[in-house]
């Protein structure tokens, strides 16, 4: 009985939580003009997807999103794990102050940075370029924090014996630290990817012509241009949501680990 009650309530809740996305997909698969609410699609069609992808440029936006999210996530994870090695295993001038300064910046709401970042990007001539979208966000403090915590647990003896064998510091980082910290490095990569995939405000400001739009920006412009075309809008939304959902489902463990770690220690 207790078990039945449990299944009943979690199923009900799951339906409520998943409903918007199921509805989105169903609407996206309807024939245009039949978006009228309470009906299920009579005939499933990929027409809306074809239209938004190839006529309204969403295949290009998708590619842009992918380029921006992948390269930002890769490079910022790399930078964070390089710095984390030094913070976890080396002593140097101003170490504590620098770490404190980095961490303190997490308290500042992102909006505060937007104006000066925009001015800098403008000065560099990076408006409407991938550079402008990617480079300002390559210092991921939260990622640095997570990886540093993890790398601290690597025993010093391991590094010492590698040094005796004549390994360079860079080699120690790449061959010992990164592989040992892999679970958290993967977490940071995924969190970064997710952040950049949906970094709406910044891309909205930097991308000024259609061929540079990312998916959320394209969606915003589409929304204001085609007020009533719901089936198309839902197809475009699906294009944005599906890749991140798939990524999440396959790598769920890493996402959850990162969040638990971050909250417990932060």
């Amino acid at each position, binding site marked *: 009985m207790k078990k039945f009650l449990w299944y009943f309530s979690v199923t009900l809740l799951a339906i409520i939580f998943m409903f918007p996305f199921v509805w989105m997909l169903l609407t996206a698969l309807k024939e245009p003009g039949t978006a009228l609410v309470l009906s299920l699609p009579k005939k499933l069609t990929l027409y809306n997807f074809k239209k938004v992808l190839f006529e309204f440029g969403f295949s290009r936006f998708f590619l842009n999103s992918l380029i921006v999210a992948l390269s930002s996530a890769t490079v910022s994870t790399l930078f964070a794990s390089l710095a984390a090695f030094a913070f976890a295993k080396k002593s140097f001038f101003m170490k504590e102050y620098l770490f404190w300064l980095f961490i303190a910046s997490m308290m500042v*709401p992102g909006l505060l940075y937007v104006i000066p970042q925009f001015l800098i990007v403008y000065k560099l001539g990076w408006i409407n370029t991938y550079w402008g979208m990617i480079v300002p966000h390559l210092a991921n403090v939260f990622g640095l924090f997570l990886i540093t915590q993890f790398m601290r647990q690597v025993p010093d003896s391991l590094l010492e014996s590698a040094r005796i064998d004549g390994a360079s510091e860079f080699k120690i980082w790449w061959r010992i630290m990164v592989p040992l910290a892999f679970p958290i490095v993967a977490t940071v990569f995924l969190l970064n990817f997710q952040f950049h995939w*949906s970094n709406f405000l910044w891309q909205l400001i930097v991308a000024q012509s259609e061929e540079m739009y990312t998916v*959320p920006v394209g969606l915003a412009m589409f929304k204001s241009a085609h007020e009533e075309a719901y089936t198309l809008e839902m197809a475009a939304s699906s294009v944005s949501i599906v890749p991140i959902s798939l990524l999440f489902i396959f790598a769920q463990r890493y996402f959850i680990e990162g969040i638990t770690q971050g909250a417990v220690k932060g």
Partner: protein
Amino acid sequence: MKKGVRDNINAYIFILPFAFIFIVFLFLPFIYSIYLSFNQVTDFSDVFGGLSFVGLKNYLFLFRDKEFWWALVVTLYYALIIIPLNIVVSLLLAILLRKRYRLNSMYRTFFFLPFVLDAFVVGIVWTFIYAGRYGLLVNILKPLIGSIYETGFLGNAKTVMPSVALAMTLKGAGFGMILYIAALDGIPKEVYEAAELDGATGLKKLWYITVPLIQPVTTFMVIIGIIGALSAFAEFYAMTGGGPIVYKWGTPLGMTKVTGLYLFNHFSNLRLGLAAATSFVLLVLALGLSITYSKIQRKR
């Protein structure tokens, strides 16, 4: 070269790429924002040079601006709905998922998945569900809701804020759920067993044992809730654009024109000095409220 110097150089090489980006795109912008908030942009062709110093004018403007105070009021209203709602739903999910029945991890995926999705896109999907006339909810609830059938839930001044809060709770509660599950796992079984010996029942155990013991997570949720409400932007941009308009304080004001939208409005009209001043006021508010809240919690 001396060993100490070499070690320092060695360490700094590893930090360099990160620190460079940090200084150029986070630290200097922070300092520059402070400077900018005391200036007015006069020449847009020269975004760094075309500034004139105006002292506290931007801050004084905010202090006198009805729209700014209104933005604070509606943001507070939003926070007062979404923070408790989010905490209750997250905790409910966590308590349910602590029972390790089969399919537990599948359900956890369902609850957590919306959290990783984009607030803007999720907002758009909800706009469709909440819409008037052809929207889904108004058609299901048609006999009960009167004029909302025409305006939709986002077009009615009374329902708009709770509607956004509900949508964003369903999107975000999976995050709190994960934190609460970890906290609940940390409570030793003996505590409950002792309470049972003293005759405590289900709800009593929840209120007198569970809730106090998971207080650190709740405090964390309140603090990120405050910061989140003060910087909420994408969800309102997607769902309401600040509307619907209500007449208050002698002027038309946006019922959901929260601080995030207010700030964006200055920004998109290139009132950069004002926008910077707004961000600082919001930062001080977020810090002040968070610190006050955690102090009060610690005293209890």
